[in-house]
């Protein structure tokens, strides 16, 4: 169980040789651009460009997908939420939904069946779609046997497009951030942040400490995941079987994982602070750096492109002919 968010993955390719400042600034610019884009075609175009960039930079799609996976639930939730509750625009689909004993029983049965068989299939997403289609069929067709209540399922144009939009935006943002954390060592990220935040100094904000806090938090995520992994191994070797067990056991297992995780994460942060202090870390003091930043042509080009993308999205947003 390896989770990728916040974890640096050694590798080569131009993303790795880029200056962290470039990557951070470009990330910010492109994120703004994503929020400005309001046409489907452009959004898909943007995704296409990102995929091309990733291929050119030799970053596996799979790695980024692994970064997205923990957010899958959030993505699906926003999608469904938008579809069901946004009632603007034209009606695309309107069906009567039948709540009957049959439809409820079938639906529960189907979900349970899906839940326990999904681990045997390799096409999880496809399997999920089939399940959803099944639910649709049950509630709108099959379940029409002496229903005790009915409702309407209506999908509006605006709802659908909003849902799709939000999802694509989230995907783009997470993908871009994942590229940043995968290709940038936490130390470089720290250094880059420090520089990018420097202008805030005018407001008498200690930017070095903020940069340190951000990068320590980023570094802490994998540490905590490692801790969770350690506890799971410790428990497995003393008789907890994470592979098997009923749902009730699973819940118990998660609880028995959470409590020590809580204690240990406190303990770990204490130890980390001690480790830093014992090696003469003094808050606010200047430090020399092993990693030095060097601005290359590549960086100027990258920043140029990011600016271009942002300007383009602004122009397209305000120009009347789109």
């Amino acid at each position: 169980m390896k989770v990728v968010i916040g974890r640096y993955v050694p590798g080569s390719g131009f993303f790795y040789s880029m200056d962290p400042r470039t990557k951070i600034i470009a990330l910010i610019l492109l994120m703004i651009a994503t929020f400005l884009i309001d046409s489907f075609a452009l959004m898909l175009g943007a995704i296409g460009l990102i995929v091309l960039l990733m291929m050119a930079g030799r970053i596996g799609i799979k790695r980024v997908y692994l970064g997205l996976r923990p957010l899958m639930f959030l993505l699906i939730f926003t999608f469904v939420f938008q579809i069901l509750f946004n009632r603007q625009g034209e009606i695309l689909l309107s069906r009567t939904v039948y709540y009957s004993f049959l439809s409820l029983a079938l639906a529960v049965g189907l979900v349970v069946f899906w839940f326990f068989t999904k681990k045997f299939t390799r096409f999880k997403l496809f399997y999920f779609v089939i399940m959803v289609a099944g639910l649709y069929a049950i509630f709108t067709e099959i379940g029409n046997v002496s229903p005790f209540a009915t409702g309407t399922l209506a999908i509006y144009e605006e709802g659908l497009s909003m849902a799709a939009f939000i999802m694509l935006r989230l995907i783009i943002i997470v993908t871009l951030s994942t590229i940043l954390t995968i290709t940038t060592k936490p130390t470089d990220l720290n250094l880059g942040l420090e520089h990018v935040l420097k202008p805030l100094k005018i407001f008498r904000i200690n930017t070095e400490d903020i940069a340190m806090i951000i990068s320590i938090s980023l570094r802490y995520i994998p540490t905590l995941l490692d801790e969770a992994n350690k506890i799971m191994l410790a428990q497995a070797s003393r008789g907890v079987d994470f592979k098997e067990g009923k749902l009730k056991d699973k819940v118990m297992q998660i609880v028995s994982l959470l409590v020590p995780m809580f204690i240990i994460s406190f303990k770990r942060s204490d130890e980390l602070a001690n480790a830093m202090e014992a090696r003469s870390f003094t808050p606010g003091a200047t430090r020399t750096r092993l990693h030095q930043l060097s601005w290359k042509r590549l960086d100027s080009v990258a920043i140029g492109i990011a600016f271009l993308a942002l300007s383009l999205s602004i122009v397209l947003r305000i120009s009347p002919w789109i």
Partner: protein
Amino acid sequence: MAIKFEHVSFQYKSIDNKGYLALDDVNVVIENTGEFITLIGETGSGKSTLVQHMNALLTPSKGSMNILGVKISSTAKENKDVQFNPIRKQVGLVFQFPEYQLFEETVEKDIMFGPKNFGVSESEAKKRAREAINIVGLDDSYLSRSPFNLSGGEKKRVSIAGILAMEPDILILDEPTSGLDPRGRDALLEVFYQIHTSLNKTVLIITHDMNTVYEYAKRVLVMREGALVYDGDPVKLFSRKNIDNWNLDVPDIIQLKDALESNFHLDMSGTIRNKKALLKRLEEVLS
């Protein structure tokens, strides 16, 4: 029934797919009763990785193993139906770092965790916790303390108690005596030896202490760069020339014996493997 490794290799996966070969074609058989084995070898030679295979916490990248009749291979598909719990009940493993093993709120709960999971009743588990904590040389007052607020050696002892309380058939200990004070070290080695002799159980100890190897082991395994390079008698091992290449050392007893023999021409022949025997012999030859 035994633990049997056939051509086992293991590669640590890192996310960039550049793996690290920690075990390289290991073949070994360990009987499930009556063995007292020490596993030694230089830093990073794969000892901890090897023993984590013995209770199936890790599974081979290549090759296969048979643990007490359960076959485990290198593909996830074939291992799908393997029941791991019976293996872990029978093969108890104490980790190298106690911090990797302790997680409960109190020492008592931590020691009871294993037994309770393997179906021992609450009251019996409590009883075992009390016994185990005393066996490892700590008094009852430790039971109510948090395992995180202990000294290094105390943590080590608690982690050992947690496995002893499971009463496994095969006891595997990863550097159990590092960090223990000398009396604690001797007492615990004696405990492991007692478990071996009185219950005829198999005990396997990883150690860097050559004295432990020489005094207790019936059989010694030596690892180097992921491969098993020696499997046999400890006495023979220390008479070989290549122990230097394996980063090993000659036990204190042998060093002293040899020095006395060559400088004072005292007769030190025969089996002298511990302090007691050495002192007895010296008394004989000197008086």
